[in-house]
């Protein structure tokens, strides 16, 4: 890494970024005023940022422009949205339930079919269409099926897990734990990468300040 051409502006902004990075790292030792400061600062900045983004892109695109273009029915969602504001009043807060009901109705209606389709059907489809052959692939497929079945049995709620069912459900939880262990192991790399990135950033700033 070699120093680049930086003006005062870059030095200040990157300095802020470096300081904030250190503020957050200080949390590892213990909670302290620097962390508190960074935490509260970003709560404000992030909210301001997203509110403005919502306003300029989403509100304009989704509400203002359609209404202006004569799509009058956009008045309905706008009214539903404004109804949420009744929450500021104790007396009228219940009105917001109408909007919430719409929101939840749409969400749960979509979910029934979509989840049964992508989560249940697709998984079923991926499991059943393969022949058990007398080779490595066949053995693997057989193992997958056994593992799927036993893990499914673990999720039986309305029968006691005793006897044969208990045995199978035990295999099931073993399979699930292997899966979780594998998931954990896989993750380490990504997390380390993120840390490395921060270290490289700090190193870059130091080089910039004091020369390579």
């Amino acid at each position, binding site marked *: 890494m070699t120093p680049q051409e930086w003006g005062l502006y870059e030095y200040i902004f990157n300095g802020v970024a470096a300081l904030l990075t250190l503020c957050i790292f200080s949390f*590892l*030792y213990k909670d302290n005023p620097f962390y508190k400061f960074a935490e509260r600062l970003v709560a404000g900045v992030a909210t301001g940022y997203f509110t403005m*983004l919502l306003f300029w*892109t*989403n509100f304009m695109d989704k509400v203002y422009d359609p209404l202006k273009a004569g799509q009058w029915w956009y008045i309905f969602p706008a009214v539903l949205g404004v109804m949420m504001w009744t929450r500021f009043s104790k007396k009228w807060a219940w009105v917001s339930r109408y909007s919430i009901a719409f929101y939840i109705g749409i969400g749960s209606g979509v979910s029934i079919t979509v989840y049964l389709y*992508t989560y249940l059907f*697709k998984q079923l*489809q*991926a499991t059943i269409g393969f022949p058990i052959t007398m080779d490595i692939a066949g053995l693997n497929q057989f193992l997958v099926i056994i593992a799927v079945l036993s893990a499914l049995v673990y999720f039986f709620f309305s029968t006691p897990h005793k006897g044969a069912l208990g045995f199978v459900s035990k295999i099931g939880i073993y399979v699930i734990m292997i*899966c979780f262990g*594998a*998931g954990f192991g*896989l*993750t*380490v*790399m*990504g*997390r*380390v*990468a*993120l*840390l*490395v*990135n921060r*270290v*490289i950033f700090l*190193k870059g700033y130091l080089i910039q300040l004091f020369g390579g």
Partner: protein
Amino acid sequence: MNIFQKMMQIDRRWVYLAIGLAVIIPSIKSFDVPVTVSPEVKRIYDFVDSLQAGDYVFICVDYDPSSMAELNPMAVAIVNQAFVKDLKAIFVTLSQFGPGLVEQITSQLAANHNKINGVDYAFLGYRPYPAITILAMGVDFSVPFPQDYYGTPLDSLPVMNGIKNFDDVKGVIEITSGNTADFWLIYGNGRYGFPLAIGITGVMSANYYQYLSSGQLFGIIPGVKGAAEYEELVGFPGEGKAQMAYQVIAHSVIIIFIIISNVAYFATRKRKAGLEGGNQ
């Protein structure tokens, strides 16, 4: 308190310190780690490699700066390969922080390979609501993106000439740190059936291997290791390979702590039997 009891209760800050050193040391003195290429990465490389100059490849950059470390190296490697092969690339992002990343990647690599925006590649921009955007692009790119990111109408971009929707691209490579891969699977590959490959963070990859076996994906680049492998294939050693050095040390440190923890556990188990339950 004997040595084993101490080993059982190492203060978390020592663990933190060890991890900190594990990434700081290679940043001062770096070293090269050999990598071997896995088949799911090779398939993506082969796919891009098999395309003819002028073929279109669609690249969706759906991560945000917080996952840059892991995903940027693979995006760079793929774009490098595409530009070297004189493919036409179309970029889209479904992440609100994507535009900056796409600009950074394209402007830098385009300069390296003498590619011109609008002629050799196009960046259509960012749209929220991935499902809707993907469905609309399946009909016509210009539905969700009447103009490209820089405000030029799509039909006046030479690179977009004669291409309309996913039917006209050879394949889609989605690089993501979030759930947009699911949208590409369900609404993209599921609905329009184009070949789809994804580059994802290491964490997510376990979740997507099943789509590899179900044929919904033709390849996966998992995390930094995948990126390092891709760089090896493309022949541009970059961030990915550099990252591998850190990974080796950090992984070793974690494994050493797990070993310490278990040695201590078994050495002190007799005394503590029955006091500790399962971890669930």
